[in-house]
C-alpha cells in the first residue's frame, strides 16, 4: 500500500472517530435535556402529592371545608399532571400507571371519608363501626399517599439515572474515542517509522556508503510504496554512476597514455628533429663560409634559403613545445599585477625596436588572480601581436586596461593596427591559423592558440573585436577566485 494511501486511511479513521465522539456528545446532551424535562415534571408530581398529603391530614384533624376544597383542587391538578405519559420505558410507564390508579383510589377514599356519617349515634356498636371504618380509610389514605410519593421519587430517580447513564456514556465514548485516536496515532507513528523513517535511515546509510566510494552498495528496499520506488531509482542511479565512472576511469587512463605519447613526441621534436635542423643550418653556413667564393649568386641564395627555412622550422618547434608546456604546467594561483607585466613588456619592445614610436596607454593597478608565469606568456603574446600589427600604422597606440561588466572584471589589450575581418574571428585562436600573410606580418600563427589555452586553464575566456584598418581589441576574463 502506498504511504499516501496509509496516511489517508489514518487521517480518515481519526476524523471519523472525532465525528463519532461529537455525535455521541450531541446525542447525550439531547438525552440529558429530555431527562431534565421529565425530572422537572416528576418534581411537579411529587410536589402535588406532598400537598395532597398535607391537606388530607388537615382534613382528618379538623374536618374543614377549606381542606376538602384544596384536596379536590390538588387532586384535579395532579390528575392532569399524570394524565400524559412522557416516559418511553416500560418500567416508568408501569410506575406512572400505578400512580394514576392509586391517585384515583386516594381521591375516591377521601370522598368516602367526607361522606362517612359522624359517630354520634346513640348505638355504641354503630359508633364503633364508624370509628373503625374511618380508621380503615385513614390508614388506606396514608398507605396510598406514601406509595404514591415513593413512586414519584422513583420516577425522578429514573430521570436522574438516565442523566447519569448519558454522562457515563459520554465518558465511555470519549475514552473509547481517545483510545481509537491513540491507536490511529500510534498506528501512524508505527507506519511512519516502518514505511518512512526506517527506509530513509537506510537511504542515508546508502548515501554515506556511496559518498565514501562504495559504488557497489545496494539499497534494495523491497516495498511497493513511494520510498520503494525511490530505492529502486537510487539503485539504478548507482549502477549508472558505476558504469559512467568506469568509462571516465578508462578515458583518464587513455588520456594519461596520450599525454605520455605527447611527452615522447615533444622529446622527439626537441631532440630528434632539432639535430638535423642544426646540421642543415650549420652545413649551409659552412658551405657559404668555406666555398662562398666558388659559388655563384643563385647557389648562395639557395643556401641562405635553406638556412632561413631550417631556422623557421626550429622556431615552429619551439612554439609547439611552448604550447605543450602551457597545457601541462602546474598552476599557482595568486594575485598578479598585469599593469607591471605590461610595462615590462612594453619597455622590452621599445628597446628592441627603438626606431618605432608607439604610444603605450597602460592602466595602473590591474590585478588578477592567476598563475604569474602563464599570465606573463599570455601578455607577451598579446602585446607582441599588438606591436607587430601596428607596425604599419602612422601613430600607433597600444592600450592595456580593465573594465567592469555585469560585476565581472574584463581586461583588454587594444591597438589601432591593421585589425581583421570579424568573419574570420572563429579561426583567430586556432594553432597555425593566420589572418595575414607571413610576408606581411611575420609569425608562426600559434601565439593566440597559446593565449586561449592559458585562459582556459584558468577557467576564463578570451574574445576579440576588430575592424579591418581600425585595429583590434582582445578582451579576457578570469575566474574570480575565492578570497580566504
Amino acid at each position, binding site marked *: 500500500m502506498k504511504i499516501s494511501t496509509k496516511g489517508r486511511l489514518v487521517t480518515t479513521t481519526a476524523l471519523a472517530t472525532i465525528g463519532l465522539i461529537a455525535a455521541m456528545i450531541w446525542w447525550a446532551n439531547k438525552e440529558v435535556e429530555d431527562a431534565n424535562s421529565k425530572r422537572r415534571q416528576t418534581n411537579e408530581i411529587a410536589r402535588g402529592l406532598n400537598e395532597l398529603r398535607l391537606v388530607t391530614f388537615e382534613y382528618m384533624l379538623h374536618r374543614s371545608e377549606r381542606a376538602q376544597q384544596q384536596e379536590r383542587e390538588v387532586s384535579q391538578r395532579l390528575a392532569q399532571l399524570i394524565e400524559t405519559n412522557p416516559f418511553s420505558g416500560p*418500567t416508568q410507564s408501569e410506575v406512572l400507571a400505578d400512580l394514576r390508579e392509586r391517585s384515583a*383510589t386516594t381521591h*375516591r*377514599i377521601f370522598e368516602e371519608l367526607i361522606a362517612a356519617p359522624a359517630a354520634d349515634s346513640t348505638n355504641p*356498636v354503630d359508633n364503633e*363501626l*364508624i370509628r*373503625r*371504618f374511618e380508621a*380503615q380509610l385513614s*390508614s*388506606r389514605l*396514608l*398507605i*396510598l399517599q*406514601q*406509595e404514591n410519593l*415513593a413512586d414519584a*421519587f*422513583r420516577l425522578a*430517580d429514573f430521570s436522574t439515572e438516565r442523566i447519569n447513564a448519558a454522562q*457515563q456514556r459520554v465518558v*465511555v465514548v470519549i*475514552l*473509547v474515542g*481517545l*483510545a481509537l485516536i*491513540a*491507536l490511529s*496515532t*500510534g498506528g501512524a*507513528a*508505527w507506519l*511512519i*517509522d516502518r514505511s518512512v*523513517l*526506517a527506509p*530513509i*535511515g537506510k537511504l*542515508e546509510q546508502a548515501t554515506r556508503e556511496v559518498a565514501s566510494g562504495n559504488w557497489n552498495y545496494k539499497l534494495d528496499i523491497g516495498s511497493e510504496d513511494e520510498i520503494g520506488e525511490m530505492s529502486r531509482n537510487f539503485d539504478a542511479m548507482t549502477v549508472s554512476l558505476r558504469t559512467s565512472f568506469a568509462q571516465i576511469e578508462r578515458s583518464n587512463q587513455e588520456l594519461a597514455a596520450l599525454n605520455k605519447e605527447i611527452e615522447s613526441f615533444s622529446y622527439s621534436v626537441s631532440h630528434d628533429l632539432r639535430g638535423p635542423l642544426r646540421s642543415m643550418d650549420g652545413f649551409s653556413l659552412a658551405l657559404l663560409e668555406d666555398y662562398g667564393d666558388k659559388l655563384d649568386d643563385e647557389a648562395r641564395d639557395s643556401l641562405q634559403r635553406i638556412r632561413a627555412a631550417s631556422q623557421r622550422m626550429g622556431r615552429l618547434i619551439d612554439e609547439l613545445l611552448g604550447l605543450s608546456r602551457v597545457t601541462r604546467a602546474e598552476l599557482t594561483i595568486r594575485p598578479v599585477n598585469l599593469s607591471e607585466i605590461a610595462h615590462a613588456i612594453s619597455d622590452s619592445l621599445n628597446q628592441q625596436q627603438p626606431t618605432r614610436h608607439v604610444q603605450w596607454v597602460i592602466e595602473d593597478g590591474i590585478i588578477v588572480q592567476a598563475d604569474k608565469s602563464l599570465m606573463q606568456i599570455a601578455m607577451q603574446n598579446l602585446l607582441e601581436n599588438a606591436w607587430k600589427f601596428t607596425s604599419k600604422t602612422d601613430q600607433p597606440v597600444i592600450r592595456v586596461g580593465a573594465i567592469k561588466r555585469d560585476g565581472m572584471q574584463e581586461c583588454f589589450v587594444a591597438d589601432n593596427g591593421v585589425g581583421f575581418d570579424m568573419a574570420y574571428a572563429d579561426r583567430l585562436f586556432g594553432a597555425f591559423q593566420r589572418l595575414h600573410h607571413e610576408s606581411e606580418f611575420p609569425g608562426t600563427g600559434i601565439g593566440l592558440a597559446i593565449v586561449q589555452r592559458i585562459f582556459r586553464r584558468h577557467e576564463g575566456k578570451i574574445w576579440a573585436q576588430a575592424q579591418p584598418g581600425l585595429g583590434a581589441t582582445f578582451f579576457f576574463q578570469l575566474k574570480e577566485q575565492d578570497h580566504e
Partner: protein
Amino acid sequence: MASETHRRVRTLVIALGALMVVAALALGYGGRRGLFAGSAAPMEKLSIALPTTPHAALLFIAAAKGYFAQEGLDVTVTRVSHGKAALDLLEERKVDLASAAEVPFVISVLKGARLGIAATVVSVSTEMALVVRRDRAIAVPHDLAGKRIGVTFGTSGEYFLWAFFIRHKLAPDSVTMVDLPPGQMVKALTQGTIDAAATWEPVKSEAFVALADNALSFIAADAYTVTHVVIGHSEFLNARPEAIERLVRALLKAEEFARSEPKHALTLVADQLKLDLKVAQAGWKDLDFKVNLRQSQLVTLEDEARWAMARGYVAKGPVPNFLPRLYLPALLAVQPERMTVVR
C-alpha cells in the same frame, strides 16, 4: 539524526500505548464492579419453607432458574400448604427462612417471636375474596349477616374478612366464623357446611370451579392489600447478612424474569406448584411482584397488630414498634432505592 528520530517515534508509540492501557483500565473499571460481584465467595446453605401458592412465585422462579446458585446460595426448599404453616416451621427452627403473608408474621411477633422481614416479594389487592354460595341468599355484602363463613384463623384471610366487614360497615360478630385449613375450604363450601369462604388463590379459583354458577365473590381492594414477605429470625438475619444479600439479588433477578417474560414465568410457577395452568393463571395478573421494603408496610403491620389484639390473639396492649422487625441492610446494599422506610 535518523536514529534520534527513530528513538522519538518509539517514545511516542510507548506513550500512546500507555495512554491506551489507561483508557482500557478506565473502561474496564465499570464492568469489573459488576463482574466480580458475588462470584468468588463459597456457596452458602439456606433452607426456606414456601407455601404452594403463587405468592411465593419469585422464590420458586429463583430456585428453578438457578438464580440462587448464581448468587452462591445452596437453597433447600420445604413446601407447605400456606404461609402460616411455613412460619410455623420457621418458629420450630426447622428452616432458616419462610415466606408468608404479614398477618401470621404480626401474630408471631405479638406473641414474642423475634422475627424480621428480609424483603417483600408480592403485593395484591384484588386476589383475596369472599367466595359465597348464591343459593344461600347472598347477593350483597349485607346479606352475609348471620351466615357461616369459613376462614383460616391467624392468616391474612381472617384479616381480610375483618377489613371487608369494616369496609361495608358490618359488625364482625354478625357472622359465624369457622376455622378451616385452606385444603378443606372448597369441600366445606360445596358440602354446604359453610355459606362463604374468605380465601385466596388457588383455593378461590378451585371454589369457583367447584360451585360453578352457584359461586359469587366479593373483594375489598380499597380495604386491604395483602403483602407476602420473606421472614427469618432476627438473630439469623443479623448473623448471615451476606446470605440475605445474595437472596435479595436472586429475588431481583426472578422479579425481572417475571416482568420481562410473564408467560414463561406463569408456566414455570404452575409447573412448580403442580397447578393447572388455567387455575394458576386466574389472578396472576393481579399479583404485583416487587422486591422491596416500604414505609407503608409499617402502617399495615400496626393495623394488623391492632386487629390481632382486638381478635384476642394476644392480650391488649400498646402496638409494638415494627421498625426493628424490618431487616434493611440487605436491600440497602443491593438496591437502596427499593427501600423507602423512613430512617
